[in-house]
């Protein structure tokens, strides 16, 4: 079992969701996040004053998958989120020791699927 965590551009979420659905990945958790990587920031103007926004709005995507879904999920995230510009985001792949479905008490792969 793996936990896939991805940081993506908020406005690419619809595309990522669509790509995930196409690859039959239907379960995910999405959180608003702030962060910065290579992209550094952007500028806003307020009453004539230009100021740098350092932390950018990002969306954090968490998906727990069984081994056979790791590649389709990662492929889908890349397909949906990639524009080729700085700021497209990153994907982290973590081992997941256990997963329990609260309602039934199921554990392991069955609880994920």
């Amino acid at each position, binding site marked *: 079992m793996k936990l896939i965590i991805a940081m993506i551009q*908020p406005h690419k979420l619809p595309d990522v969701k669509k790509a995930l659905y196409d690859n039959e990945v239907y379960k995910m958790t999405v959180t*608003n996040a*702030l962060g910065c990587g290579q992209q550094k920031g952007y500028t*806003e103007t307020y009453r004539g004053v230009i100021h740098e926004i350092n932390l950018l709005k990002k969306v954090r995507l968490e998906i727990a998958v069984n081994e056979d879904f790791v590649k389709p999920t990662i492929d889908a995230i890349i397909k949906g989120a990639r524009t080729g510009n700085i700021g497209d985001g990153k994907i982290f792949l973590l081992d997941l020791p256990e997963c329990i479905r609260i309602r039934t008490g199921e554990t392991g792969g069955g609880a994920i699927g």
Partner: protein
Amino acid sequence: MEKSIIYASAVGVDTLWVLLAAFLVFFMQAGFGMVEAGFIRAKNVCNILTKNFLDFCMASLGFFIFGYAIMFGAGNAIFGLKGWFLIGAESGSRVPLYAFWLFQAAFCGASATIVAGGVAERMKFIAYLMYSFIISAFIYPVVGHWVWGGGWLSQLNFTDFAGSTVVHAVGGFSALVGTMMIKPRSGKYNPDGSANAIAGHSIPLASLGVFILWFGWFGFNPGSTLSVGNGEAIARIAINTNLAAASGGISAMSAVWRRFGKPDLSMSMNGALAGLVAITASCAFVEPWAAIAIGITAGFVVVSGVVLMDKLHIDDPVGAVPVHGFNGIWGTLAVGIFGQKALGLSHNGLLYGGGLRQVGVQTLGVISVVLFVTVSMWVVFTLINRFVGLRVSREEELKGLDIGEHGMESYSGFQIFTAQ
């Protein structure tokens, strides 16, 4: 001597009344702003309020330079040609020209701002600025000339007391053309044809806006008498305006409750606005019971209209077309059904034994205006699209027009989902 003093004070009272009404109608601009802001997503609020703000500025200048001359200047049956920059212009009633102008300019701004809601969340700001100048300097005044400036429809005794056709059908159908040309917002319709709800970000703001509009309408309709007289007419108009709004709200709420299982506030509020739009043409010529009937029908029209628009995949985020367009038509026709000769209409309506005469003229008038507006706005939007483009890029739309068009946020310091 005494007679002239009485006359002067009567004119003074009328002027006070018209100016008060003009100020109330001006305040409706805030109502439109709040309704539109509340019904869209947080990431586009700064954009819509800038549009709402600037279109009144544009309408004021456009109506000063060209609009008034076209609408009220001497000319032919189609448009007026005298009084550019108000030079040599004459007032359309016995109140001074400047009071009359301010009242009419506030109406013109209301008509222009209706469109902002229909094309919300995706129209380029610069395109909107161009549109708002053109509609208030040329399109709205032409229709105004036909109906209120001595043009061909007024010669046929077409009657639109305060502007169901002139203001609301013009704004509503401009919004229809705009929203059809600019296409739905991304994510509004699924590939299988079903519609997604894109919920508005602030129901409190939208409610405030509806109440401000309702309040402003007490200037819009009663003020259109342009005189106080013995008070009878303005009192009748005020009660009719209020009853139509109330019954529109109730009937839209009932319709949506029955149809979808819950009394949806946003739809009930659209119903009240629909009632207000619908009573606008006939408010001086009908009994209070008729105002209730007109309002109830308006509520049903708006609910069916919203559902119909989604079926046709016409994305109108705030319901501008059903509220102002469809009910502008209904309100205009209602004059010919419920209107009474005894109250100042040229012929009795259908229910008072006047036959089809008035309702026929009303139908002809509203169809002509809708056709004119649809065709001319189609030309205007096509040209704007050709030169500067109507729609922002998909990326900008998803990020939000606040950052994309204005580089500032509406709710700085808040975490806002821009992921839709």
